[in-house]
């Protein structure tokens, strides 16, 4: 059976022509005439109930759950696709490139990218942004060595393997930040090889921030002019810019590229993110791949066109002032969380400017109910915008009860 899309979509219903080759006849089927079996509908209903229940105890992952994009639901009725470079012309007209360009411009301004000297696109999430940054670095410095800290997200190891880039892991400090002395000593030995520094602007477990200023100081001290710095700012790319006195990690600090997630602090039903890089670097690699007959600059060809709409909607709805209010509330609640745990004798802590509260690994009974990520002997609470004081109180009460039960 061949299924081909039928041109226009009246009333938001996408039609298909179904060609039944075996029976040698053509018939038209639409979503109005082809529907799910009752058992399948029931399965979806059960799954919906499961999702609603699970969302209630979602406290250990950095994804905001307080969004409402219902005004955008109507666009889900179309096969939108932002294929290829968001700044190129395209013969596929069902796209949201104008919105994507506005989103990218907003992020570029937020990250202090030099006017007209940046490039980027909306990704499928932080990992793709990091993959793009590392890919760019490898094309610029094929002989380069990647340095990244022990607390780096596991997906980076995967990316490095995919790109076949040599790498050395550097020790982390207790707070999750990279050990600068270890970095300096390792760079000193390999100073003839261009370093590609992978900086964490918010590590997964402890939200530790690597200090780009210290990276630059080490590179100057060791007289290493040729280098590349990529920032994984998955969560904190949308928190630190709105916190007075927070460390600077963006293009002002001399970085070459960065990746920010859209489904984390902003919140989105679809994983998404943004990657930004210096245009001069992107142009150099675009030239280098001309021999394959394409200037396709994005990792994937077909790209999600709904995600840029979500991001555009969120940044128009919240604006910078809204995001400042949002992070201020989260920081207050993170403080409340630390105090609440300490009051019951649990040594909770958080890094400066962080909304991640680190605690000792909670009892099994608590982990069975609450979605809390654990690593070795610690766990963490992500005080995202949907985490209220009442939710923290409920979690703390469950931990107290579990400890009583165990005693």
């Amino acid at each position, binding site marked *: 059976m061949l299924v081909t899309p039928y041109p226009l979509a009246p009333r938001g219903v996408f039609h298909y022509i179904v060609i039944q080759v075996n029976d040698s006849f053509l018939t038209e089927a639409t979503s109005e005439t082809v529907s799910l079996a009752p058992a399948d509908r029931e399965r979806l209903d059960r799954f919906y109930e499961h999702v609603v229940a699970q969302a209630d105890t979602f406290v250990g992952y950095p994804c905001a759950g307080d969004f409402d994009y219902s005004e955008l639901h109507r666009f889900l009725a179309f096969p939108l696709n932002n294929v290829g470079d968001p700044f190129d012309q395209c013969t596929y007209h069902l796209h949201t490139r104008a919105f994507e360009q506005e989103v990218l411009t907003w992020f570029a301004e937020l990250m202090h990218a030099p006017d007209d000297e940046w490039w980027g696109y909306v990704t499928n999430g932080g990992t793709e942004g990091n993959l793009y940054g590392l890919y760019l670095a490898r094309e610029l410095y094929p002989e380069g*060595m990647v340095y990244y800290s*022990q607390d780096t997200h596991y997906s980076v*190891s995967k990316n*490095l393997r995919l790109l076949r880039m*040599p*790498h*050395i*892991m*550097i*020790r982390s400090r207790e707070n999750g930040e990279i*050990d600068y*002395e*270890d970095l*300096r*000593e*390792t760079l*000193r*030995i*390999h100073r003839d090889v261009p370093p590609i520094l992978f900086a964490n602007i918010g590590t997964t477990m402890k939200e530790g921030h690597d200090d780009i200023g210290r990276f630059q100081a080490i590179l100057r001290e060791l007289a290493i002019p040729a280098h590349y710095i990529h920032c994984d700012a998955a969560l904190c790319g949308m928190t630190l810019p709105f916190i007075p006195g927070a460390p600077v990690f963006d293009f002002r600090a001399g970085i070459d590229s960065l990746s920010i997630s859209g489904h984390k602090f902003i919140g989105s039903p679809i994983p998404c993110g943004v990657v930004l890089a210096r245009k001069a670097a992107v142009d150099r690699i675009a030239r280098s791949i001309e021999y394959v007959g394409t200037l396709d600059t994005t990792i994937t060809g077909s790209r999600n066109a709904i995600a840029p709409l979500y991001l555009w909607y969120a940044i128009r709805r919240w604006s910078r002032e809204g995001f400042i209010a949002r992070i201020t509330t989260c920081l207050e609640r993170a403080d409340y969380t630390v105090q609440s745990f300490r009051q019951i004798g649990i040594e909770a802590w958080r890094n400066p400017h962080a909304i991640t509260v680190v605690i000792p690994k909670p009892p099994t009974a608590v982990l069975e109910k609450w979605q809390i990520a654990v690593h070795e002997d610690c766990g963490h609470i992500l005080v995202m915008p949907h985490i209220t004081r009442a939710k923290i109180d409920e979690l703390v009460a469950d931990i107290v009860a579990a400890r009583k039960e165990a005693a």
Partner: protein
Amino acid sequence: MKQITIVTESRRGLTADIAGLLAEEGINIETLDAEEVEGADVVTLTVDRYNRALAALRDGGYPAVTEDAMLVRIEDEPGALAKVAVRFKEADIPVRSIRIIRRRNGFGIVAISTERTEAAKELVRDLLIAE
């Protein structure tokens, strides 16, 4: 015979648990050695179905290191890894990856992968774990 190494918290019954896990998957263990290194158990095994074993160990929560990497024990202090890296540099052995597996009790266990495994092993023989 390909080798797999597991580095995990030292505890009683660990080797029995690993053997049970692999047996459930129908994987035969050809050899199995275990040693304690600074509070960690380092279990080295060879099996008849290498890829299946790696997947089963991963799913069972055991961090497995493949035979492409060698494990070394270093002091947990800034620059310690750099001192190891310099040996490879001076011997002109390209490093693919250096990955910290565990840090505890003032020591670190590190997995190193190079272009020339046997020559690299000779260079760090004094630091090798689970040869």
